């Protein structure tokens, strides 16, 4: 691939990013609604910690809520890309365009990261003001590094899940919500995974969110130095290195299935 070709593909990838931000602008009312809901949700969960009389519990829960907000947004934006295009009636048009599927998905994932970050930063600002949070001494750089590394496996999982609505328009979308729910349950978002029943705990160990939460909480609550966060960061990067190509291959296989069985139509 020449530099010229890479530039062309980058511009095509930007098409998806720009399109999605145009849609954000047009659905601005709904964006405000989701932002308010996410903020209220985070504040409510933080207040549970406050009601227990412990600042540490408050911060523990807030970190869980904020991180889950970011990671679930990332997963949702990638996993629902097919469902949403099918609902708009543009799925066939997008799949007919002379754009590598990797370029398409790269554009979608880039948008998901930027959108997720923007929303999470806004919620974080409101949360800091609401609770007068004091993060002096916290390892913010370490926390951001862990968060950055966590994007990789979540993108990989999102790519794999995005194939479900390709294969079954209605049930596929329902399945991605179930997957998201399971990740929420087993990853220690609002509680330590030790409280999970024994038979569920193996799922915690394979959920990338578990290591994300452990790493970020360590950095912010216990000021764990960045070097000590390397195990979590490496696990997340390794998970991403495995899940992204796997998710992409699954997506391509799903696309071939959809084209064989006529599933790209609006009604599937």
């Amino acid at each position, binding site marked *: 691939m020449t530099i010229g070709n890479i530039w062309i593909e980058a511009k095509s990838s930007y098409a998806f990013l720009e399109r999605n931000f*145009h849609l954000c602008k047009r659905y601005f009312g709904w964006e405000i609604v989701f932002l308010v809901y996410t903020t209220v949700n985070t504040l409510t969960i933080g207040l549970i910690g406050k009601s227990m009389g412990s600042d540490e519990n408050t911060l523990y829960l807030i970190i869980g809520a904020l991180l889950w907000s970011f990671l679930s947004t990332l997963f949702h934006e990638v996993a629902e890309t097919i469902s949403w295009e099918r609902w708009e009636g543009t799925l066939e048009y997008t799949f007919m365009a*002379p754009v590598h599927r990797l370029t398409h998905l790269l554009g979608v994932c880039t948008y998901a990261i930027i959108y997720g970050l923007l929303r999470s930063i806004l919620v974080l600002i409101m949360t800091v003001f609401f609770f007068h949070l004091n993060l002096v001494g916290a390892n913010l750089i370490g926390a951001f590094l862990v968060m950055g590394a966590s994007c990789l496996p979540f993108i990989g999982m999102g790519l794999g899940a995005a194939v479900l609505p390709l294969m079954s328009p209605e049930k596929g979308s329902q399945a991605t919500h179930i997957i998201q729910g399971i990740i929420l349950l087993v990853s220690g978002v609002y509680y330590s995974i030790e409280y999970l029943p024994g038979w569920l705990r193996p799922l915690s160990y394979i959920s990338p969110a578990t290591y994300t939460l452990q790493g970020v909480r360590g950095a912010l609550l216990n000021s764990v130095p960045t070097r000590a966060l390397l195990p979590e960061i490496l696990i997340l990067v390794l998970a991403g290195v495995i899940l992204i190509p796997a998710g992409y291959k699954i997506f391509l296989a799903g696309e071939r299935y959809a084209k064989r069985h006529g599933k790209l139509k609006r009604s599937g």
Partner: protein
Amino acid sequence: MYAIECQDVKKVFRKRKENGKVKRPLLKRLFKPGREVVKAIDGISFQVEQGEIFGILGPNGSGKSTLIRMLSTLLYPDAGVATILGHDVVKEVGKVQRLINRVSVDAAFFKKLSAYENLLYTARLYGVPLKDMKTTAQAILQKLDFDPKRFFDPLEDFSRGMQQKVAIARALLTQPIVILLDEPTTGLDPKSKRDVQAFIREVNQEHGATVILTTHDMDEADKLCRRIAIIDGGKFIQLGTATELKALVADKHENPTLEDVFLDLTGKKLVKEDEEQT
């Protein structure tokens, strides 16, 4: 080289059989669902010359859209080979996609976005420079009698006719060599229909684009198409110029129309989609 060539193309769908009268036991429904085989395309072979407007006339469910989807690289044939300018639609997807564009019966847009934003998306996808996008799109829309003041309004505020004009502008923005028009004038008001038909003729005559046009409208097929294929049950029943097709039934009808041809060959009435909905 032919613009489009199909050799014995077939497509079968297996649909879940719903028997409303007899309720089958749950386990049987889960593990041995009844499947009905539907031959959507049943051995179609044809060629379209470069620069030709080729019509496909057929009732709903005859396989027109399925054929268009296959040529658009959205559906794999189960058998046979389909090529666009010599490129296989399955094996050389990227090359085919650069040569074609499609206008479907439902304008496939992001309805909340404006015409400008939708066309901008297309321009970026297809590598059309922005300056060219604005000039070309506005020139096409002007010819289609589109109000330029509405270029930045959300498409959901437009009538179907206006949306379809934007869809045509979008398809032509990429300067395709082969244009696939799947019932582009269905549901349009008479003036919009005339504008679109005139534009199709112009694009073909001035730019040499090859056009495949599926339609319910006999007059449209007669006016625009050099040759017409009549499709029913996934097969081409007959193929020829309008004159040749009418000659087939000349012994039964004085001044036969394409409707007479269609009725005699298929035994069915070609009901327009907008008539079916009333």
